[in-house]
């Protein structure tokens, strides 16, 4: 100690102490809080619900009402289930930032733990669709790509386009792209029917069929573009644009060169 105190008036002493203090506090806090993010037991569950309620009151009640009863600008959350919350909050759609046509997917505001808490709270209000289990998401094992494709074209392509690139609805609304979405969120969207999307009940599209759909979507996502760059996978519009711009463009360029006098 005596050795160190010799440097107490060194100009680097202040900053060094500050950095040491910050590191100490940060590490201690992380270690301490890590303990609370362990497996939730039944006892922890009520704590989770309470945590969820606190987050809800702070961040959601201004639109959804203090008791989730809904209001002029937001629907009631009673009975929407944990799946709805996990989807809406997990994809960043909620809290809704831009109140125009529809909620957009964006960087989630809440951490996965906070999202779980919110989901638990809303689920406690009334029974509703639950977050899919690992069994229900084991699409690699239990799904069929080919069957998923048939189901997708029958039930999803009319809004989301044949390759899941998204499509237009009326009045500026849109069905978003399905590329790069977590399988859990795809499942939850089918089950809860967010915003304009209808609900796909488990009796009309069974959980196995839902897994097949997810498997096909994931396949379409990872399938490389055969035959060249994809032009967006939206069909003839971009193809026609390319024919006129690149195709005729290069050809007219060569034609101009052809007719020019050589030096």
């Amino acid at each position, binding site marked *: 100690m005596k050795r160190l105190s010799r440097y107490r008036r060194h100009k680097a002493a202040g900053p060094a102490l500050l950095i040491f203090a910050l590191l100490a506090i940060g590490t201690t806090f992380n270690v301490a809080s890590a303990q609370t993010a362990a497996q939730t037991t039944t006892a922890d569950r009520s704590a989770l619900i309470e945590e969820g309620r606190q987050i809800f009151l702070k961040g959601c009640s201004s639109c959804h009402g203090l008791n989730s009863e809904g209001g002029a600008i937001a629907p009631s959350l009673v009975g929407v289930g944990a799946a709805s919350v996990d989807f809406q909050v997990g994809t960043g759609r909620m809290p809704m930032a831009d109140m125009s046509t529809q909620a957009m997917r964006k960087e989630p505001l809440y951490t996965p733990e906070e999202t779980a808490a919110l989901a638990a709270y809303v689920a406690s209000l009334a029974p509703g669709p639950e977050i899919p289990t690992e069994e229900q998401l084991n699409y690699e094992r239990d799904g069929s790509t080919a*069957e998923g494709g*048939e*189901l997708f074209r*029958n*039930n999803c392509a*009319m*809004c989301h386009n044949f390759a899941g690139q998204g*499509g237009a*609805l*009326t*009045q500026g*609304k849109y069905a978003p792209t399905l590329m790069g979405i977590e399988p859990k969120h795809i499942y939850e969207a089918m089950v809860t*029917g967010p*915003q*304009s*999307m*209808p*609900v*796909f*009940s488990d*009796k*009309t599209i*069974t959980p196995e*069929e839902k897994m097949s759909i997810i498997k096909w979507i994931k396949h379409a996502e990872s399938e*490389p*573009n*055969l*035959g*060249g*760059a*994809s032009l967006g996978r939206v069909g003839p519009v971009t193809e026609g644009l390319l024919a006129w711009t690149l195709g005729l463009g290069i050809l007219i360029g*060569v034609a101009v*060169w*052809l007719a*020019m*006098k*050589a*030096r």
Partner: protein
Amino acid sequence: MSNEIEAIKDPGLPAHVHRKADHDPVAAKRAERQVAILFGISSLGTLLLIASFFIPDDIFIFVPVMGNQNAHQLGLGLGMAISLFFIGMGAIHWAKTLMPDQEVIAHRHEFRSPDSDRKEFVDAVKEGAQASGLGRRSLIKRSLGAALGLSALSPILLLRDLGPLPGNDLKETSWKAGTYLVTDPGNRRIKASDLEVGAVAQVLPETSDPEHRKLNDIAKDALLLIRLRPEEFNLDAERLSWTHEGIIAFSKICSHMGCAVALYEQQTKHLLCPCHQSTFDVTRAAKVIFGPAARPLPQLNITVDEEGYLIARTPFTEPVGPSFWGRNS
């Protein structure tokens, strides 16, 4: 105006400007080498094409901007493109730099034939027509006309079996009283309780051979099942009786031009056809609220059987799909 006023005179073809290769043998040799290099690149392209043919077709390589590309396909295509393109470049460069580029003048002659030729032509035609006797012999003329005209009917007649007459086909579907509604795909019967509020289901009529449905039948039978809250309907008493506990059924075949109208917006309760953007209001029996469709989607009268499975109470009361001349409104 230009007739009275003197126009600016034509100075004639501008003086010919020689190219480097015309007078400088070094430049000419360089041009020749350039042409040869272009043809050489073409040959390299052909080699790439041949080599790519033997690359296994499950190898993918990463190309910037384009992403993962199939090496076999890319090699074949680029090889072919290079081999063809550079033959063209070589030939054009050869013509531009080495072939004579002195402008040549050719003369246009008038198209009109000389009067003597025209007179001889007219005489020949007149003589020929006279000789045929067609002008005088009206019996031949009339009977020839009749024979040719009649013979033209035979190919038309022979095409009769191109297809059956439509008859009542356009007015009928497979939906009869008591037909069960089943999921598409899956062919499972549907209970009213299977659908939640806000749910939509793709439906077909139950058939004895679900593995071998004909597309012709699907083209008229395809049905949409939508569940709302009963108080959300804005229907007259009769149409309301065609629903069951908030579940309403419509033909999926657009009344405009026959595309599948399957796009349901849960919050607005609108159906959108992606082909031409016709929009239908489900709460008002699929009344058209936007777009070119002129008629609402036909509604199917549904109910449930003793076990709660959804069935059709009656067939469709109007033809489904696009309009046709004989469609009574």
